[in-house]
């Protein structure tokens, strides 16, 4: 109990100094005591009792009514005392929750990890950064026995923990797709049925899936309502939208997806992104797709992974380091 005795002594000193001579110095002591009280969990009702005891000691001739008034005040402060204790305990719980979410985020990170394939024909760069601790974006690479590379990018509508939980399901659905079903349109059709069947009716997923075949340099792709990426044509030096039409996953289980084809020539680039990239809000409003193309051009001389890292850093800076939505950017650069 010596902390308490010590606090009482400090209170006594500061109060008697102040009563002797009403100066700012003593009031400053009072403020410091206030901080200590909070640190040592001394509740409002205890402070009032301390105050009353001090007054009785300092002014034994004080009218009884004045002293009684402190008993009344003490009673009035009880509610605040309870609120204060509740606050302490809620703060503790919040800390626990934060730790739990951090662990969950790590678990998610491990769950969703995907290995970036290493092939000569294609240079691949990918980055995915959650706005909060957990990511509602997801990207996935697979390489089949014919050296074909599948790339998927998905975004759950919504953010935070519910979105992240939902994404883990997509990952497992993808893993359980049979190897021969890696045609983009059939991938989306299978996943659409999984999402429609298993996910909360107000949760939807946008997804882009592409398949690159190094033997004929064909890139086939399909989109389920996903933010369109870009295609860079090295021969003309022009960027175009990688347009593909298709409905979000999870709206209608009978949805069919259209598959598109493109021949990828040497130096061409395929840029895939989530709406966290295009929904970057700067002081001047949303960034335009042209701004994004400008950034890509500026970093084009770099290796694909450095490109995505740099573009992310530059966009992060443009929006004052406040990410509003999960951010995912993938760049595929053809070397053949």
């Amino acid at each position: 109990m010596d902390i308490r005795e010590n606090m009482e002594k400090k209170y006594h000193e500061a109060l008697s100094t102040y009563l002797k001579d009403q100066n700012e110095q003593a009031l400053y002591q009072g403020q410091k005591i206030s901080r200590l009280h909070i640190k040592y969990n001394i509740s409002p009702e205890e402070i009032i009792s301390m105050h009353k005891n001090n007054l009785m000691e300092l002014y034994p001739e004080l009218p009884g009514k004045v002293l009684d008034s402190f008993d009344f005040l003490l009673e009035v402060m009880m509610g605040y005392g309870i609120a204060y204790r509740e606050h302490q305990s809620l703060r503790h719980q919040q800390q626990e929750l934060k730790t739990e979410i951090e662990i969950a985020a790590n678990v998610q990170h491990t769950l969703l990890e995907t290995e970036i394939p290493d092939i000569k024909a294609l240079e691949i760069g990918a980055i995915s950064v959650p706005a909060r601790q957990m990511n509602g974006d997801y990207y996935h690479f697979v390489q089949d026995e014919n050296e074909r590379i599948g790339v998927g990018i998905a975004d759950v509508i919504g953010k935070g923990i519910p979105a992240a939980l939902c994404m883990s399901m997509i990952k497992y659905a993808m893993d359980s797709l049979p190897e021969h079903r890696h045609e983009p349109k059939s991938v989306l059709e299978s996943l659409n049925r999984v999402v429609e069947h298993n996910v909360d009716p107000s949760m939807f997923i946008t997804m882009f899936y592409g398949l690159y075949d190094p033997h004929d340099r064909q890139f086939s792709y399909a989109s389920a309502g996903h933010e369109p990426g870009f295609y860079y044509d090295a021969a003309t030096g022009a960027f175009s939208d990688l347009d593909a039409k298709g409905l979000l996953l999870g709206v209608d289980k009978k949805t069919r997806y259209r598959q598109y084809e493109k021949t990828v020539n040497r130096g061409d680039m395929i840029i895939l992104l989530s709406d966290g990239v295009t929904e970057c809000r700067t002081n001047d409003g949303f960034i335009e797709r042209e701004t994004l193309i400008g950034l890509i051009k500026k970093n084009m001389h770099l290796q694909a992974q450095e490109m995505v890292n740099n573009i992310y850093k530059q966009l992060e800076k443009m929006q004052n380091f406040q990410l509003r939505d999960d951010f995912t950017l993938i760049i595929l650069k053809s070397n053949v």
Partner: protein
Amino acid sequence: MEFQSCVKIINEWDIVAARQLGRNVAKELGFGTVDQARITTAISELARNIYLYAGQGSVSIEKLNINGKSGLKIIAEDQGPGIEDIRRVMEDGYTTSGGLGAGLPGAKRLMDDFDIESIPGEGTKIIATKWLR
């Protein structure tokens, strides 16, 4: 059991009677003003809960002396609707909801021991103890 007395809680004034009883016993046992206020506030919360949600019940105060340690025990009993989800009622943040059981977490924090038993449809029994230091 050395001493026990009981107040029936039927209307709001009975809450005051229960507080008074608790304060008298707390004083007799030698609790300081702060603990007296804590004990009476806890009694208030429990009695109020009975008055508002159970219709009627009782609050008993007991003096304890176990192994030389003295304490005060509050027993609040009612034959009201009971509490379906005790865990939820005892959660922080529930205090502000104003619903059945609001104030129980507060009462728990003001006392040293707190025990609650409730059967939906039959009633609730809460035992709370404060030890003299």
